[in-house]
């Protein structure tokens, strides 16, 4: 599996989420993702970027264009230095929220993409990686 291209953009304001969504949509289009896969990825990016901003106090979005044989994919890594998640099992429960959202962002994002990986510990920040293949 090769990384063909990559980049990083900061998420520190609400506006950055909008821009990140647009950038990811463009990347997904260039990757040849179908419309449904594009929309799912962009929606997941929107959820996770907002989580990072609201609960993690902002962080970085790192994207990679992947090539694995014939299929192409896009991986997006969200990394913040926030408080981390104390009870991951609870956080990955539908409808549970520590804020005032619907409690579907994290679990929903997981269902929207092909691969989902989360690393977090209290006080250690959070790192979420999602991948969508064409």
């Amino acid at each position, binding site marked *: 599996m090769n990384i063909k291209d990559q980049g990083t953009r900061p998420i520190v304001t609400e506006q950055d989420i909008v821009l990140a*969504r647009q950038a990811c949509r463009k990347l997904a289009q260039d990757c040849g993702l179908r419309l*449904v896969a*594009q929309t*799912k990825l962009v*929606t997941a990016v*929107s959820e996770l970027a*907002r989580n990072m901003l609201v609960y993690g106090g902002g962080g970085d979005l790192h994207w990679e264009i992947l090539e694995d044989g014939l299929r192409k994919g896009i991986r997006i890594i969200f990394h913040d230095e926030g408080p981390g998640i104390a009870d991951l099992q609870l956080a990955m429960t539908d409808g549970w929220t520590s804020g005032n959202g619907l409690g579907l962002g994290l679990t*929903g994002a997981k269902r929207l993409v092909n691969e989902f990986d989360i690393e977090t510990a209290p006080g250690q920040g959070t790192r979420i990686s999602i991948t969508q293949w064409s």
Partner: protein
Amino acid sequence: MNFFPDETGRMSQFDQSITDALIEQQSSIQAAWLATLEESGAVRGVRADELKKQTADFLKLFSEGVVESGGDYWGANGWAGTREFLEALSHSRALQGLDAQQTATFVFSLKRPLFDLLQRETSVPPASLVTQITLVSELLDMMGLHTVRTFQKARESVIKRQQEELLELSTPVVKLWDGVLALPMIGTLDSQRTQVVMESLLQRIVDTGSDIAIIDITGVPTVDTLVAQHLLKTVTAIRLMGADCIISGVRPQIAQTIVHLGLDLEGIVTKANLADAFALALRRSGLTVTKAS
């Protein structure tokens, strides 16, 4: 601002011979400058005669500034004319759609012709030459920065105006029929804007006494949990006011995304497009559309 005070504490000044040369050799400096500008590609889209006039005007103001201020710092009164000229230039460049770099290059590209001029003036002692070069360089830097700052301000005012226009554009609650309102949502829903849009919809429902409100999300590219939350809250508020709400413009990819996200929109009437929603609204109002025979 005290740039280069010498031992006596006075500002460094331009050598008299330099000042004279600046005035005498204006046309050759202009020619060299125009060549540098052309080379840099910073003047694409600016008419040649316009550029010629701009460079000539600037050199005239520049030498006047040197004479009046004696090469004194940029904030001095002697530079007022130059400042005004650069501000006007920035504005016109911003309107012409040139970028900040291209605008600033107008000033910075004058450095080389002026340095060449200083080098040609052999009457200036070498020790003093360094001071003179620094002085010219510093002066042009300040001018360049002033240009960029003005340019940025001009652009910001354009953006601000556009934002205001956009906010006005983004809240069109339209009446489709007696008792049927429609709100075509366009763009991003997760900002302050949503609040404004929803408030104006609720207000219009009261004002017009409508029974049915259609929220069309065809123009919303991403429906995530926050957008859904806004929609759910609005639907609830509309119902509390005794009216009904239909959400239209749910495209196939949005529908699939909503399913995967696990959003529960049960109990909310949704339609794929505005026409279907309108037809339903008419039916509910007891109206039918028939072909005139």
